[in-house]
């Protein structure tokens, strides 16, 4: 081993003067400020959160008391399954519905309509405006007393009296999903359109000449080309929705009667309305375990895509 030195890949001739650090050390030095920040504001707080779950700690009081698994038991014996179910309903709904809409729009714009560039820009609007504004707007649309949705539906004779969309257990989750769908379908549209544009037009024409119908062409030509983008988009949106907070918090705050309570709102409310840091972080720990599984899948998939 030591005798024949392997032919070295000639390192780029670095500076002759003052080359005290090796390249590796220099590279690590460059990452140091970033790593310090990450450690201080992400990794330390998250680790301490996992640790805090084993204590009884009140936000208003100093000190804490070790209680073992009590906080976890509180959730697992209580609302954990309901919260998990609601989180999943929101996540799946707010991922699939905008995906279908965004994909449909991307396919439509990709047929080379006149002004599709302009339309693409116009459709970005819901995605570009701040999330809180999205929530305000839909809160107003869904308003029980003066909301435009009730107004239109009543004029059209579809409903007889105003519906408190956000205040009824049966419709609140639906309303939240619609709002989130509105905010995220443009993003999916842009990503999928970018994917679609890599499909050579000739492929479609050839398939069409060969007598493939539009459905057949979709599955034989289009889908294989966008499958990569589609899977990344779906997975990312799923991960984001799994921890989404703003829309739900502003629209319903987890209500009515806890029917839109997800991990995000439950952790937040437990900590800042109930002041119970121990229970909040315990639920957060369970939540994070589930999220880590998702993130692991994501990293697996991006890894396979072979980023440098």
């Amino acid at each position, binding site marked *: 081993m030591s005798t024949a030195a392997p032919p070295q890949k000639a390192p780029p001739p670095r*500076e002759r*003067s003052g080359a005290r650090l090796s390249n*590796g050390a220099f*590279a*690590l030095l*460059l*990452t140091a*400020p*970033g790593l310090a*920040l990450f450690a201080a504001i*992400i*990794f330390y707080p998250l680790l301490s*959160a996992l640790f*805090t779950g084993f204590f009884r700690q009140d936000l208003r009081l100093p000190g804490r008391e070790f209680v073992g698994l009590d906080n976890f038991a509180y959730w697992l014996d209580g609302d954990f399954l309901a919260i998990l179910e609601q989180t999943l309903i929101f996540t799946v709904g707010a991922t699939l519905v905008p995906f279908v*809409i965004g994909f449909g*729009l991307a*396919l*439509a714009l990709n047929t080379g*309509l006149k002004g599709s560039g302009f*339309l693409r820009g116009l*459709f970005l609007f*819901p995605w*570009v*405006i*701040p999330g*809180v*504004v999205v929530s*305000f*707007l839909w809160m*107003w649309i869904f*308003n029980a007393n*003066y909301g435009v949705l009730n*107004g239109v539906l009543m*004029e059209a004779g579809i409903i007889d009296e105003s519906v408190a969309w956000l205040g009824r257990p049966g419709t609140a989750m639906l309303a939240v999903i619609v709002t989130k769908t*509105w905010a995220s*379908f443009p*993003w999916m549209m*842009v*990503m999928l359109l970018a994917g679609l544009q890599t499909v050579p037009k000739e492929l479609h*024409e050839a398939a*069409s*000449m060969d*007598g493939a119908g*539009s459905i057949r062409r979709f599955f034989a030509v289009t889908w294989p080309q966008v499958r990569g983008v589609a899977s990344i988009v779906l997975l990312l949106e799923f991960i*984001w929705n799994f*921890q*989404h*907070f703003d829309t739900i918090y502003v629209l319903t705050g987890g209500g009515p009667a806890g029917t839109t309570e997800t*991990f*995000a709102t439950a952790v*937040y409310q437990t900590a*800042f309305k109930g002041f119970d840091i121990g229970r*909040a*972080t315990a639920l*957060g*720990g369970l939540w*994070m375990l589930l*999220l880590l599984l998702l993130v692991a899948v994501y*990293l697996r998939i*991006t890894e396979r895509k072979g980023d440098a």
Partner: protein
Amino acid sequence: MTSTTPTPVSAVGRPQASATRAGRGTRRRVRKDLLRSRIAAWSAVVVIGAFGLLPVYWLLATALSTPESTFQFPPKLIPTDLTLGNFTALAENDQLIKYMINSLVVASITAVLSVVVATYMGYSFSKFRYRGRRSLMHLVLASQMFPQALLLVTLYTVFSSFGMLNTYSALVLSFTTFTMPLCVWMLKGIFDTIPDALLEAASIDGASRWRTLHSIVAPLAAPGMIAAGLFAFVRGWNDFIFALTLADKEKQTLPPGLVSTYIGEFQTAWPQLMAASLVVSVPVIVAFMFLQRYLVGGMTAGSVKS
């Protein structure tokens, strides 16, 4: 109809077949196909357009309506008594102006901090090969997927114990948790496009590694750095949950500020809130107009906006 067209196999086998009668049939069918897909495309655009754009119309219409006409049911779909009063009321509200200044300050500092730190990190990831590099990159990527609500709970206790609640620093640092990962990945992607040969040439000419980075690479990457900064600014400007929790009325930013200003327990001032919402959106829309070019690339690399 299908009987007159050649089967797929024969068409592939004999491309010349288009000269025959069957070929004309094929062309007619393809044209019909095209027409049908045009119709389908336009219907999709119209239906989705209604869903996507009618709420925007309602945002504008409400912002331009008088408070009285807003509390009418059923609502007037075409407002008749247009007014700019809701916007002028904003300009006269000192508290809102304070929120806006806070937003500007915090989002700007966040953007600068994120870009500076991410430039070094992204450069390191892009141009050097060393042990642990991939793991670090994945850690950065994964870090933006940790649950914010949980992070917030402990950030609150940490900032509280350092007496940092209600400070700009707390907001900047907490915003950095979601802007920095994004900037690192965007900037890595941008440094990847700068050829290694350029760095080698610089080092042959005697430039040190620092000098190469600062005087040669950074100016080349400047447009990308500005884009990353704008993304970070927008994310900071848009944040709701961190600003809501970590700051009070003195240091709060616009998004939570709007809640405390307009959303009352019993009655909400909808026209004013919609007008304020539009004002909050303007810087973001302007930023995105500049960012169009970077949108898709930046999103695939850094996976922005949750």
